């Protein structure tokens, strides 16, 4: 549905040039819910706005469906108003001088393809019904709450019957409870309509719950693209791993076979990790650090000591010391919190390996 090749964009400001997109390659399949995830300044919004036609990239190519909408080689730039897409903006961009009905109707009466009056009415109400706002049609826009504005924005974007729906942080202005509710609704609705969605967010939980596929962006680059669990379980860089939540880093050195001598003791790794030779770092997420009061596993189990336990509701967050190194562990809170000496198990399938220096390189990248 979307095919992006070698897309580059540099912003020049008084303080210097900022590389917002550097050589982005990306493909979004028909009907896919694709999320662009990254911290602010990573280029995700610039990429979305380039697809919309609101930014003009410096070079590269963008095709939507079979149409090339931007190509620096062909010197082609189709303006936004002719790309025929729907979009939900971060601010919702509900026109404050119009009613709910007129907000949804305006693109149908003033847009590229204008409908007959009666058709407009039907189409507007169909769209408002989808988001449950049909009873508010006559309401002036300034009288809507944030959540209602968000729904009208979605209805307006869907009413033009787009094959591609773009969403720019649509939930970031809602409060936490409403956000969860709307998230579920957006997912169900877009699935039902079969529309292709390109969605920008900086919230990894939002990304993982919504996406069929995620591209993690930083500094104008796509670090990794794939399905949510793949990104979570098999990040290709420490930076992606850290982006999806807390992770413990353990330095080590390969011994013979799949054994690694680490700063906390010797650990056995899976064959699929295919450890090269030399120094490396191992990443393991807090929920994969298994604690037990008595020995429970034949391998990869080390003695440790619990320094603190915090109750966070559904689970405990432990600080454990293993051979002088502080690690984070997370466990369900269905029983009493553990205390004192424990056994710490590292399941070998749940460990991720990177060559030594990967973290330092990441840090440099962040600073530079």
């Amino acid at each position: 549905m979307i095919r992006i090749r070698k897309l580059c964009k540099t912003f020049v400001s008084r303080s210097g040039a900022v590389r917002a997109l550097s050589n982005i390659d990306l493909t979004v399949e028909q009907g896919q819910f694709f999320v662009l995830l990254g911290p602010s300044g990573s280029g995700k919004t610039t990429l979305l706005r380039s697809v919309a036609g609101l930014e003009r990239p410096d070079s590269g190519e963008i095709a939507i469906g079979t149409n090339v909408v931007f190509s620096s080689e062909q010197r082609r730039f189709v303006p936004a108003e002719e790309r025929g897409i729907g979009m939900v903006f971060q601010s919702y961009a509900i026109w404050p001088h119009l009613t709910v009905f007129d907000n949804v109707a305006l693109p149908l009466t003033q847009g590229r393809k204008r409908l007959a009056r009666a058709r407009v009415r039907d189409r507007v109400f169909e769209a408002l019904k989808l988001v449950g706002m049909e009873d508010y049609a006559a309401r002036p826009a300034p009288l809507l709450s944030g959540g209602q504005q968000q729904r009208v924005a979605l209805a307006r974007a869907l009413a033009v019957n787009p094959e591609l729906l773009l969403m720019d942080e649509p939930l970031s202005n809602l409060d936490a409870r409403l956000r969860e509710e709307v998230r579920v609704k957006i997912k169900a609705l877009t699935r039902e309509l079969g529309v292709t969605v390109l969605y920008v967010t900086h919230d990894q939980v939002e990304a993982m719950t919504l996406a069929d596929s995620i591209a993690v962006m930083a500094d104008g680059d796509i670090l990794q693209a794939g399905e949510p669990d793949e990104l979570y379980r098999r990040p290709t860089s420490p930076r992606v791993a850290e982006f999806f939540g807390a992770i413990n880093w353990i330095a080590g050195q390969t011994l013979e076979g799949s054994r690694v001598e680490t700063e906390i003791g010797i650990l056995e790794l899976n064959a699929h990790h295919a450890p090269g030779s030399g120094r490396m770092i191992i990443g393991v997420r807090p929920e994969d650090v298994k604690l037990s009061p008595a020995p429970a596993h034949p391998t990869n189990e080390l003695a440790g000591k619990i320094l603190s336990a915090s109750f966070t509701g559904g689970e405990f967050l432990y600080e454990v010391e293993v051979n002088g190194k502080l690690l984070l562990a997370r466990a369900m809170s269905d029983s009493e919190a553990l205390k004192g000496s424990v056994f710490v198990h590292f399941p070998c399938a749940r460990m991720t390996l990177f060559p030594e220096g990967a973290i330092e390189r990441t840090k440099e990248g962040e600073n530079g």
Partner: protein
Amino acid sequence: MSHPLNAPNRYHSINTRCFLPTQRSVLIAIALIPAAAIVGLLVIPIWVSVRVETDAGFAFSLHAYRALFSDPFSYRTLFNTAVFSAVATLTALSFGVPSAWIVERTTLPRKGLVFTLMTTGLLIPGFLSAMGWVFLLHPRIGLVNAALGLVVAADWARINIATPAGMGFVQGLGLAPLAFIMTAATFRSANPELEEAAAVHGIGSARSLLRVTLPLALPGILAAAIYVLTIGLAAFEVPAVIGLSNRVFTFSTYLYTQVHPQEGAPRYDLAAAFGVFVMALSGILSWLYFRVLKEGHRFAVVTGRSYRPRQVELTRGGVRAAWGFLGFYLIIGQLLPLATLIWSSLLRYFQLPSAAAFANVSLVNYRGLPWPYLIDGLKNTAFLMAAVSTLVLGLSLAISWIVVRSKARGRFLLDAVAFLPHAVPGIIFALSAAYVALFLLRDVVPIYGTVFLLLAVYVLERTSFGTRMLNNAIAQIHPELEEAGQVMGISLFRRMGKILAPLLLPACVNGWLWIALLTYRELTIASLLVTPANVTLPMVIWGLWQSGSFTRAAAAAAMGLFFMLPFLFFYWYFGRRLAPEGLRT
């Protein structure tokens, strides 16, 4: 069953319309017309001042500058201008700044009224107040001087308004509302925490005012001072009413007499040379103005949080003193000269109010007005008000949209050019336009002596205000409101009509009325471009004054004030917000 919204998409074909100009380029073309005209009008004086006609055509020469700077009269004019504008600035600040502080930072009751009156004060034509002041302070017939004469017979006990300082005082009274509005903004945006910090640490409120409030407001006050000085430097109306007949010249009246000499041929070269000199001066002052504003931002008085500045609690005595001060200004600055003017219009010759004078009150001056001429002027003025305001808003919308919203290259240059008429005295524009119409366009477009010449120059002059206003107004509208329309297929012109224009409507109504009112009172540009065929109302009034029929001029002026009332009412009704900052009066 497939959902209706899930029907196959029909938006597949994308035409790129290679052959038609895009709406954006049409908009840019519209914006470039006034910009090019402004640049043209500013280049003309330079060109006129350095060329000399020879047998072979034209040659480059600095003779005009040599003639200008070897004539003692030029130096006297410069000295007069310096005294005039300095006194005007001081007067404007000494009334405007305390008033602004009182209104913004004290608990004075009913102070909203002051804002309304000050905004109106900006619209009262300066030449009408000047006429009133002549009736008050004329050496022979002036009301105040006559009263003084009852006490002391000697000549030294007369106040002569027809001096550079006297005219400066009158001009300053007229500019005080501008100083008020500009510094009110500064006082309003002051961070109260800075003063609270002083209070908590034991600094009393009087000391706090001197040591914290004023130093923080200083850049704003200084910027206002420079701005007022720039306007005073080139002010025309007061020197034209008071100075011309007494042969006391400032820059703008000098320029006027060079183009409209009582004897001999017009000296466009001398006028242009002086114009270029003052343009350079204005340029330096404008640069200083922006420098000071920028420095002011370093204090970061505005933090973007919304808060109400700390207000000084006024005692009963304080309230009386504050209203006394404000009332004093409103009476001598606005009310007294206009009341004197109306009083004079009712008398055959000027006399002090007395039982005998009241017995002589009549409408004879009104009956004696050249009514057909006056109505011509009124018609032209009405046409100009409607046409100038509408055209300015249209052109400004095109320019401001390009400057604020588009990413077109050179948009900042376009913005700077649109701002230029703000920084360059209007009389120079008029000089330039007169020259173009008389000598360059005469055979091509015979526009001289028509109302369309006035229209063109007024529009160019006011576009600076229109773009300042719309730049601010557009910047306050979230860009995503337009982008949402764009992404959903609404073309640029339709977005402007259906989304931007309705959102800008309040600002536009306000701006339209403001421009119309300034057009109504405009005399400076008209003085060089009006002929009997395209006379405006202010020119009729001034013409009567110049011919020496003072009381009939007063009657015409009273009619002028009368016609203005409905517009003032509309302005209050629709606007009732303060006049946008940085207005040119």
